[in-house]
């Protein structure tokens, strides 16, 4: 059988028809499947939900703020259960607030836009003269854990004393941080130096874990950090001690307290205090406390903060601010 042009034409025509029908079938199927999808009108509008924590308290929510002693994400992961538990214990729906800075946390407390907060000691002593916040409770730690300020340097660096840090880049956390700024500043002052001229550059990282990471990676020559955060990091990664070492540590200070606005409702205040003090009374509470490195919450001891208050007062005087 000779394969002439007609043979070819027939087969190619058949093939083209088959391919066209196939293409049409596939497109038709796609159209049909699309027609079965739900329809949403993107042109309609409703208002966004209210941002959490905005506006005055409504009696149904508990606005609980945690200062960013570590990064916001770490703060959320570490303290969410605490916020939920305390909120549940006082019979309210918890709103977890993480102010972007220590100052913002203090402002919210003084304005009364948060109901309760865990803040740095520096924030408390900074707000204390204004009389607009009050101690509610303070944490107690396991034996050997103290709230101190540490100076950290890279393990392989030649720095041995504070004097070796002259002209170097230092990482502080926040201007109102006790262990992350106020105490190390006082220490440099005690050496007869001004930190702004002693160090080559001062970098504010916003949180103690960021300061530790900055030293570890060599972004800065040294960092002033919270000993409790340092210990928590070591528990997670013991090999950190091979990369970062302590060249100086301060005396212990009163730990970061639980504070409330001075004008907080009495009933709520009492409920909150009971909730905090009773937290270590059950297994869930102890788990929550263990996750944040705390043994228990106890009634506040204002005398524990006297040293910090003194240091803050002296630094304010040096800065010429009341």
């Amino acid at each position: 059988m000779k394969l002439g042009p007609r043979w070819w034409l027939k087969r190619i025509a058949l093939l083209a028809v088959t391919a066209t029908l196939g293409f049409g079938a596939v497109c038709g199927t796609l159209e049909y499947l699309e027609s079965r999808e739900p329809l949403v009108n993107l042109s309609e509008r409703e208002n966004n939900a209210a941002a959490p924590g905005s506006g005055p308290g409504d009696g149904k929510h508990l606005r609980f703020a945690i200062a960013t002693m570590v990064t916001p994400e770490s703060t959320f992961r570490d303290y969410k259960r605490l916020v939920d538990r305390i909120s549940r214990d006082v019979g309210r729906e918890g709103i977890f607030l993480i102010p972007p800075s220590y100052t913002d946390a203090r402002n919210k407390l003084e304005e009364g836009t948060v109901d309760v907060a865990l803040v740095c000691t520096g924030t408390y002593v900074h707000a204390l003269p204004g009389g607009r916040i009050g101690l509610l409770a303070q944490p107690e730690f396991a034996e050997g854990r103290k709230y101190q300020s540490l100076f950290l340097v890279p393990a392989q660096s030649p720095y041995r004393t504070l004097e070796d840090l002259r002209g170097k880049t230092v990482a502080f956390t926040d201007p109102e941080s006790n262990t992350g700024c106020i105490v190390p500043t006082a220490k440099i002052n005690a050496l007869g130096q001004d930190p702004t001229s002693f160090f080559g550059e001062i970098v504010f990282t916003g949180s103690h874990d960021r300061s530790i990471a900055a030293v570890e990676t060599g972004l800065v020559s040294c960092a002033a950090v919270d000993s409790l955060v340092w210990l928590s990091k070591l528990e997670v990664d013991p090999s950190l001690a091979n990369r970062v070492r302590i060249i100086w540590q301060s005396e212990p200070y009163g730990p970061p307290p639980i504070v409330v606005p001075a004008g907080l409702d009495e009933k709520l205040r009492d409920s909150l205090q009971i909730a905090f003090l009773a937290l270590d009374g059950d297994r869930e509470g102890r788990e929550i406390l263990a996750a944040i490195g705390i043994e228990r919450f106890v009634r506040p001891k204002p005398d524990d903060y006297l040293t910090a208050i003194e240091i803050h007062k002296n630094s304010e005087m040096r800065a010429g601010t009341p």
Partner: protein
Amino acid sequence: MAENLASQIVSPLLTGDRLTLHDTLSKTLSADSKIRYVCVENERGEITASTFEGGYPPGLPALWRENPSGAVRFRTDEGPFTDVAAPIIDGRLGRLHVGLSRGEAVAATRGYLFIWGASFVGAFAVVLWGAHLVAARISRPLRRLEDKVQRYPQQPWTDGEENISGTKEVAALARGFSEMAERQETLERERAVTQARLIHAQRLAALGELAAGLSHEVHNPLDGMLECVRYLEADKNKSERQAKYAPMLRDGLERIATAMQQMLTFAKTGRDTSVEKCAPGDVVASLVPVLESRLAARNVKLSWRNVNGACTCLCNESSLSQALLNLVLNAAEAAQENAAPEVSIEIGHDKTWVRIAVEDNGPDIPGDLRERIFEPFFTTKPGEKGTGLGLSISRQLVRAVGGELELAEGPTRLGGARFVIRIPCQESRTCDE
């Protein structure tokens, strides 16, 4: 991309940094034209931030509630969309939603489908063409070759269509088969010829046996009859009628005796191949008196000579004499057509062969009969003259002693036929010719 974005907005979301959050979402929107919206859904299913202006479409949260996990496809007034969700801090802060327009993707899919289809058609056409090539170059020629092989030998190989061609290998195969068929046909022809010769030889052998038997029965009475005729001729008191008819009777009887003798010789040929040293010249010399007496009665002149001196050969003298006798008698018979019939015998030799040539001045033998004259019972003599066995017997006698009897080519000295007996010299028994 959605997961990456979800991790980027954790900090501004937690700290309530709406500006940074809005910047991050807006940058994502402008990064790719397929992204039509980005929304932040909190853990209660409410939209807390989005790239929509003036609020958000209420249909979206309802869509997310009905499809809580993975990507969801839906239609809008702007075309088909896909909503991709990524959890924020394992879903504890809610989910980030990215809305992707599928219009371009659908168009691209259709484009790919079209290209695929066209490629498929093209590929299929190439396959068809390839199949056609294979069929034209390999399958069909092989099928035609197979048909030819199947029909052979009932149908001759060269019958029918033109030569089979295709790829080099197929053409070589076809040529191979063709050559094999030719060799087969040649062998078949040779077999047929050989078979015919075998049948002919068997017929001759049977005939020879018959002739031997017949001549043996006739030989004795014939001898007696010849003896009686000789007595009659020798009678001094014979009558005139006796004197006239006795010689005629004797001639006839002698011819019968000769024929019988030839038949006997034909039957016996090949049975006695003993050879001895002999001088052809002496053989001829001893035959000449007999020949002269026989030829004289027919007025045929006989002459003979040694061309280059005496020589010897190894042969059977009796066979040689018989062969010479037959040749000379045939030559004399042929020379009768000449007014002055003459027969000559010439003996010559070289290092290898002894040649004895018998020539006559009768008519030459026509070209188409030159080979047939050696066939048994073939004769050109008219009527009942001769048995046609003389030359056949002579050839067999000469071959039996390693020689050959040939009819010489070309014009001869006397103008007639020239038969040459070639026998190896004594010094060289191999025949190189």
